């Protein structure tokens, strides 16, 4: 087979599907402007599931909303940084262009599907509507295709259920309808912000299985935001851990869980209770704790955001912000002490 003569084709590594670089989001509050996202870096390859984990308030949702151009208005804005997707910088696009990309090249699903579904329209019609708008199908073709998509996301007897209103469905079924709608547009990137947090574990597993299938069959990349480390461990190829508005560690899933480097990642992993730890009627050891509390946005630390809670802190940590430095191929850490290359 002939190799393309195009010289740019030999330029591996190809640029990632999504490349968020030094993203800073500013929000006006009564106490003045704050920066809940303060220099986030993320690189997502086509067709991979990329997990973003971190505790409440660390800036996960605002990062996702920035990518979609959906920051709260007028108080929120992208202050600096870039969001490269395919060949464009989304941070610089106007609303009209963003709307074209949203729901088309990039689709999204949120935690509570009920708020994003139209309560007075049958689920089949809603999926069909997306097909008419984004793929230009005729109404009849769209409805047939919608039923097919509903079947694909595991809605039994889709032909009849297509006429059901959302409130007649269970939470897991609604989330699956949301996925069908997102897929109707054949996106390149699916942003899923806590898609299963409101669901019971057995149902949660089904919805995540479905996302896996979509990745495998349609080559969709998924940005999976969650606070559940277990979900990331099972589903994602790569992970970013966020703390206080920055990515503190980014690695392949194996690297992150087998050789976590950042003290915060260490602390979090040790704090998660795990099945199968109890022996012989004894109380298990206490869980390890991370002392202190999450940082106050109104008073950002000059140095490392984690410094006031960190056991490894050295003097530089209080003064200087650590860079996100590579410690191994594909493994980056933002820490003065542990973020040093092993080589």
């Amino acid at each position, binding site marked *: 087979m002939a190799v393309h003569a195009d010289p740019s084709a030999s330029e591996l590594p190809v640029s990632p599907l999504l490349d968020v670089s030094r993203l800073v989001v500013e929000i006006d509050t009564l106490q003045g402007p704050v920066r809940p996202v303060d220099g986030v870096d993320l690189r997502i390859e086509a067709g991979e599931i990329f997990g973003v984990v971190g*505790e*409440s308030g660390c800036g996960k949702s605002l990062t996702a909303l920035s990518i979609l151009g959906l920051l709260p208005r007028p108080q929120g804005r992208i202050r600096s940084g870039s969001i490269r997707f395919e060949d464009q910088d989304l941070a610089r696009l106007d609303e009209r262009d963003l709307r074209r990309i949203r729901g088309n090249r990039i689709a999204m699903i949120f935690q509570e599907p009920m708020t994003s579904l139209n309560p007075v329209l049958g689920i089949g019609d809603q999926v069909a509507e997306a097909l008419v708008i984004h793929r230009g199908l005729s109404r009849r073709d769209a409805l047939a295709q919608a039923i097919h998509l509903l079947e694909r996301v*595991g*809605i*039994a*007897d889709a032909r009849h259920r297509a006429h059901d209103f959302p409130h007649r*469905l*269970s939470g897991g*079924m609604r989330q699956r309808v949301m996925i069908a709608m997102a897929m109707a547009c054949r996106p390149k990137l699916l942003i899923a912000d806590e898609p299963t947090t409101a669901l*019971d*574990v*057995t*149902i*949660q*597993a*089904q919805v995540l*299985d479905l996302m896996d299938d979509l990745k495998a069959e349609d080559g969709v990349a998924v940005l999976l935001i969650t*606070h*559940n*480390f*277990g*979900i990331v*461990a*099972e*589903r994602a190829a790569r992970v970013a851990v966020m703390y206080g508005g920055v990515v503190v560690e980014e690695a392949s*899933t*194996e690297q*992150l*869980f*087998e050789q976590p480097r950042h003290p915060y990642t260490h*602390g*979090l*992993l040790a*704090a*998660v*209770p*795990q*099945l*199968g*730890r*109890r*022996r*012989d*009627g004894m*109380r*298990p050891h*206490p*869980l*390890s*704790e*991370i002392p202190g*509390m999450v940082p106050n946005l109104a008073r950002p630390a000059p140095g490392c955001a984690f410094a006031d809670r960190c056991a490894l802190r050295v003097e530089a940590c209080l003064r200087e912000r650590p860079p996100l430095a590579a410690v191994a191929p594909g493994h980056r850490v933002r820490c003065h002490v542990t973020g040093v290359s092993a080589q």
Partner: protein
Amino acid sequence: MTTALPLPLLSVRGLSKSFVHRNWCGRVIRHIPAVADVGFDVARGRTLGLVGESGCGKSTTGRLVLRLIEADAGDVRFDGVDIRAAAPARMRTLRRDMQLIFQDPYSSLNPRLTIGGLIEEGLIVHGVRNRGEREDRVAAVLRRVGIRPEYMGRYPNEFSGGQRQRIGIARALVLRPRLIVADEPVSALDVSVQAQVLNLLAEIQEEFGLTAVFIAHDMAVVEHVSEEIAVMYRGRIVERGRTEEVIADPLHPYTRALLDSVPSLRPRAPRRARPARDDTDGERGGGGCPFRARCDLRMPICRMVPPNTEVRPGRVVACHLHQGQAG
């Protein structure tokens, strides 16, 4: 003569409660059997973990145990006293001995009271007249849960979620109860805060010899805190036993599905088969095993409610697959 086993602090038998759902003009649409024939014992100083999916009747069971709502049938004995038959005066003292800790630290604390006032409330209700004594006890209990007594005059909204949960624990603890029903006390918290609160609960339980019913939907959390587990499904306990045994060797198909669905921290753990059946249609309602619509192993006999089979002492499963295995 047999040697008497020590009397469990809490003993529940045949507990049932239905809710009536009415339409807007008051006509009864349906009866929801929220809790059906539930039974368990909790030994002194021990914790029973109650798990199951949303709506399976965990909170209702907790409320029935504390008699915050009245049961339709069944027996709840606290230290041998039949609480369903207790007269109002007796109930008042029992209330002090049995306290509830809520899931949501935000909505369960009255925003207009200072945290000191919130904790003191229970002491006033239960007749601690001496103001100095009340203040001392509030300060001591706050210190115990890791909140500075100086903060007594602050309001709940000035505290983080984890701190509010500590305040909720302090409020229950100040009355020196013997039984705690903790209804999803860490479900709203982040992992690092969850670890702090779970450790605090464990220390306090040890220190005061508290008995607890711990309600949660996270299997790993329940395993961490409880010596015994009861798994509920649609109002019934489908499996019950020592925690290690239930986790290592689940007998009921629902318990298995529940455990298989818990993501582990091992990257790319092999995917396991999961029940993909849709339980919103078909085999539902009427009699029969409540799990049969979702069960891959169902048999014709599953149209009958399975008996609670005690396969080993203290190990109970409600499934026709295990019937006749008693021994």
